[in-house]
Structure formats: C-alpha cells, structure tokens
C-alpha cells in the first residue's frame, strides 16, 4: 500500500504521536487533528505512524491512509524548512500570481511535479485562496503573509531566507 522510501531508514520516534494522541483524545474522530499534529511537528506524515495509529485508534490502516491522501494539506513526502505558498485565488490570479510562481520555480529549479528542493530547504506550492485578497498577490512563507508580491520581490525574499539559513 505505502510506497517504501528507502532514503528514510531511521526509525521514527513514536513518542511524539503518543503526546499528540494524549492531548486530543484516542478516538477515531480525532484522526484529522492527530495527523495535523504530527505534520506540524514533522512537516510531513512519516509512514511509521500509519500502522501505529491504526492499532491505537482501532481504525484500519487503509482508512487512515485514505484520509491522509484525500486532504491537500497532508504530505507523505518530507517538506522543506520553508514552505512557500503562492495564493492563486481569483483576486491574486487576476493580479498576476502565476509569474511569481514561475520565478520561484525557476530560481529553485522546481517544477509542477517536484515541489521540494533536494536540500529540503524550500517547498513551493500553490493554494486556492488565503483570504487576504485585498493585498493580492499574496504569498506565505511558513504561514507568514507577504502582501503585494512581484516576481522581483519574491527573488529578494528567497535571498533573505537563504541568508537566514546561513546565519542559523
């Protein structure tokens, strides 16, 4: 069912999952919240959690997997340290959001299929609407909103984020 990812050989520390289950309650209806909790901590859903959650919650592994793949916010692949979301809502779209996306992809050598850089620093994805239409076009970096973007401003922002990485 799950594609095995060979490059992730380290076993995942399941105590994180236990903490999350303890705070949200061990019931099948909490599954989305639990997965959200895991993703907030790990930036993706490691495959090890599926059999574990299945046993804990008494729900089949397939149905947990079906939830994880249905919702757009869940990722089974590791995401970058900086998740850049380009809003392509109607307002941003008519104020030219696509050139920003293209610029970022070009700068980071990403494509529609490949959204995360190899060094796991950046993930670039589009979202349907962030609800900040008055400031269109908008992008977010790890949920921080950057208003009135242009391709040039996006390039500058990338440079700043890279500098930050060096400082860290």
């Amino acid at each position: 069912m799950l594609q095995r990812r060979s490059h992730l050989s380290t076993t995942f520390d399941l105590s994180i999952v236990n903490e999350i289950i303890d705070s949200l309650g061990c019931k099948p209806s909490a599954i989305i919240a639990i997965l959200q909790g895991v993703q907030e901590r790990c930036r993706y859903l490691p495959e090890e959690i599926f059999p574990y959650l299945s046993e804990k919650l008494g729900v089949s592994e397939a149905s947990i997997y079906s939830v994880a793949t249905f919702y757009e916010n869940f990722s089974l692949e590791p995401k970058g340290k900086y998740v850049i979301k380009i809003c392509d809502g109607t307002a941003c779209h008519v104020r030219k959001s696509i050139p920003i996306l293209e610029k970022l992809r070009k700068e980071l050598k990403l494509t529609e299929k490949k959204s995360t850089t190899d060094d796991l620093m950046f993930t670039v994805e589009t979202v349907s609407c962030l609800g900040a239409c008055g400031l269109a076009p908008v992008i977010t970096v790890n949920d921080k909103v950057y208003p009135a973007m242009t391709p040039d401003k996006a390039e500058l922002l990338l440079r700043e984020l890279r500098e930050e990485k060096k400082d860290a």
Partner: protein
Amino acid sequence: MLNNREELKACRDTYEKLLTVEKKRILVCAGTGCVSSGSLEIFDRLIALLEERNIPCSVELQEDGCNGDGSADPVGVKKSGCHGFCEMGPLLLIEPQGYLYTKVSLDDCEEIIEKTIVGGECCERLAYQKDGKIYARQEEIPFYEKQTRLVLEHCGHIDATSIKEYFAIGGYEAFEKALFDMSGEEIIQEITDSNLRGRGGGGFPAGRKWTQVRSQKTEQKYIVCNGDEGDPGAFMDRSIMEGDPHRMIEGMMIAALACGASEGYIYVRAEYPLAVSRLETAIRQATEYGLLGDRILGTEFSFILHICRGAGAFVCGEGSALTASIEGKRGMPRVKPPRTVEQGLFDKPTVLNNVETFANVPLIISQGAEWYRGIGPENSPGTKAFAMTGNIENTGLIEVPMGTTLKEVIFDVGGGMRGGDQFKAVQIGGPSGGCLTTDHLDLPLDFDSLKKAGAMIGSGGLVVLDSSTCMVEIARYFMNFTQNESCGKCVPCREGTKRMLAILENIVEGKGEEGDIELLLELADTISQTALCGLGKTAALPVISTIKNFREEYEAHIYEKRCPAGNCQKLKIIKILPDLCKGCSKCAKVCPVGAIRGMVKKPFVLDVSKCIKCGACLDQCPFGAIEEVV
C-alpha cells in the same frame, strides 16, 4: 463565573462603565491583511511611546480603572478586527474623534501620539485622500459612507480578543433574552418571521432549517458552524471569526437553545490560523464566564463548543462532506435524503449554518424580526457582506443592504476601476457563481435576482475584472479549480469537469475547434443535472455565464486564434523588427527552442512555427527590436 442573569447584567454594566473611562482609544487593525503589513509592530510601538511619556495606557479593560492614582485618563490601545479597507492598511482608528489613519508605518507613531492623542488634532497626511480632498473621519470616507454595517458593526471597533469589551457593548444580551424570556418556539418564530436566509450562498431560510431540527425526536442534536469559506476571493467569514468571534458564538448558542442541542462544532479552514486562535480565545473566555458549559447561568441549558480545523478540501464546505470531515473521514458528500437536519453529524439532527448567518442571529433576537425585515427587499431581507477584490480601487470587505445595485457597490463603495480602466465584468459567487457585465449594473444584489441573471451570491466574493482580463481564461481558471477540488465520488463531476477543462485549455492555447462551445454547453448541462452535490451542480456556471455574456471572445479564440483581451500567452505572436535589429545575437542565444536564427550584424529572423512564446528574447533585446503582437 456568572451564576445567574443578575450577575450577567451586573458584569455588562461594569464593563460598559469601564469602557467609558477609556475616553481615548487607538484601535489598531489586527486583521490578517494589516497584520501582514506590520500592524502588530505598530501596536507595540504605540504602547512603548505612551509609556515613555507616562501616559497610562490600557490594553485590556481594567477592573480597577487604571487611573486610580488620579493621573490622566488612560488611552485604550486595542487590537481590533478587520476594518474592511484592506487596500489602505495598516489602519488605525482613533476614538472619540473617529479619525481613520491609513497606510500607517512605524515612523508615524510618534506623530500620532503627539498630535492626535495629546493634541487632539488630525494628522491629515495619514487620512484617506481622494481627488485632493481629505477625509479625516471614517464615516466620511466614500468607502464607508454608502455601507450599512450590521454584521460587521463591531469589526474594527472593539478589541477582538476581549470578551469584556464584547460585554461592554451589549454582548450576550440577545442570548440572555432568548434564554430567560423566550421559549424555543418563540426563538424559531422570530427567526422565521425575520426571513433570514442562509448566507452560505444557497439562501435557504434559516427558520425552516431550525424548525426541522427542533421537531426531531432524537435527544442528541448538533449545531455546526461552517467556517470553511473555500471560495477563492471571499474572506467575510474570516473577518467575522477574527474580528468579532463572540457575535458568531452567541448566534450558535441561540440556535442551540432553540433546537435543543447541547454540543456544537465550528469547522474552520486550516488556511485561517488567526481565526482559529481568536475563536479558541473566545470559547475559552465564554467558558470561564460560565456562558458555555453545564447549566449555563443557573438554568437547565448546557452547551459546549469544539473547533475543528479543516485540512484543505474545498468540497468540505458542502454540508454532508463537512460533517464527514468532522467525524474524521474523507470529506465526501453523500446522497440526500436523509438530509443534514435529520441525519447530520454522527447521524444526529444537525443545524448547519455559515458564519455570517449565525452572526445575524443576535441582531434579530435583540431588535426583532420586524426591524430586520425593514432592511433590503422583502424576499431577501438584511444585509450582505461582500469581499470585493480584483481590478478595483478600494478592495476590501464591505456590507450593504440586500438589493443594493451592482453599480452602487462597484462605483460608489468600490470607488470604480483601478487606474481608471474600463469595467468589463464582475465574477460573483466564486466557482459556483457567474459573471455579470455592464448590462447587469442596475441589477439589485439579492438571492433571487442574481439567480435569474444566471449567477449566485454564493459565498459573496466579488471579483471585479477590467478589459485586460480574458473571460475564457477566467472560465478555465475556475474549471481548473473545480477539477482539482472535485472529490471524485461521482462521475459527472470527476470526469465531466476534466473534459470541460481540457476543452477550455485547448481554446486558450489556440487549439480550439468548431463545435467546442456547443460541446461545453452540453457537458455543462449534463453535469449540472446529474452531479451529486452542490460543488458539481454549479461547477459549470462560470463557463455557461461567460459563454452567454462573452461568446464573441470564445469565437475569437477558436476561429481567429486571437485573444481579444491580449491575455493568452500562447496566442501572442513574437516578431523581430528588422529595422531596429542590430544583429547582436543575444536573442538567439537565449531562445530555448532555437527558433531565432541569423548572421551577426544582420537582422535576425524568428521562425513563428517553432516559437513557444516564452518571451525570453523580449527581455534580452537591448534595442527594443522584438515585440509581442496580440
């Protein structure tokens, strides 16, 4: 903890008095828009500057007054909800004068304190200006002047994170009235008489929904608030949740009282982290004061509220998909009946309304159905909040009485087109809505007349488009959205939208064929009639309405391979002007497909059949010898 009605009243009185102590108030907009342009830093700076000057300032309403030492009156510095005028942010509202400062920066704080707070004068350079006229006070600004803000009345005027301020302006009064003075039937009667229609888009009468839930014999019932708001270009629900969360919670409590429910859920999309945290704060505060929980205010009524975060699925805005998602399943719609009012969340009778609908409820209970019916047309009373965006001067959040014409909304409130461009169309109601044109400018905006015109209020997103927008591209954009968001359960939506999208993509790429328009209409008809849920049923509306109103644009794309708006990249032709070309070969070097050839120092030639119109050569030419022809 409030134990009875008297204590609630006393509490309200106390905070009302405390609010009057704060004679001067600075309300810093803390909506998502202004926060992202730095309003929280401004908030901190203002407090620091006041402290420097030893002017007492209060961030929370202070029980002991704060000027107990006999010093000057405290200045209230508050984080308020969205003022709506997002384009001009960060915004600051100064009371009691009602000055609205726009595009405030950190450097302006000093002057604001000195001139306005200490001196009482207006900093005119920060006020809104148009055509050389300065509008110092908020209510004078044309953007606000034509609005009727009822649901949004507190957004921007009170501290969004303080239940005390909500008490101070008469908060939970409607709930108190409903709890102690009205029976469940009476509450429902009032809502039915008001003819409040669901603001989620469909316009289903709220009173009828509540009656159906109340009449169910089941013990356990649920109140669910739909705060999913996935429509691109809509953010009114977000602003209510962020700016006045107690108002919506109060509406849910009244609904619970009327229908006999003891548990409720607020489903908020994950893209709204600020709304989630404000709601969490509000629920915590209401619970601390004993307004949520067991035996509320000493009565038999108990009610608790949970927040459920969405995980990025547009279809979860649909009732049965939303309840499935709360239950921890894939958010897929199901066949109805049974309807949500009979078997909703956890198969129990459920009232499911959207944020704006619940926010209307306290108003109706306090002011009465008759008063409410006096606003707007008979069949769609009340006001409607719209999120106005696109190529318009004043983008932002507005609220007007139902029945206001499109012209008034766009040109009076919206200030007309940005940069004086020509109005072309307005896309209303997101992916479920349609396009309206200049012919519809006198159309009153309400549920019924929009439906007649082939559009719908939907979530209330108004995206204003100017002449540079290609309508076929807009139709393609929405179809792409619906196709991505289709849950895949029913064939018409899953396969039909895919087919429609492919045709539209062909058309904008210049590969459209004769018969495409007819095929699109036929597919649209089939999908609308056979899809399982509202998402599928309305998916074709943007296509139908753009074909109906802008058929000639489709025809130009298909038959002349031309985009009249000059927007479609693939339909552009790139030319090298031989007179200007100096033969430097820069263009040929960057061309990724080798479409440009020539001898150095002689004019180069571009092979149109090879050209992919990427535009790389355009940026490279130092002589302006390459041009794009529409």
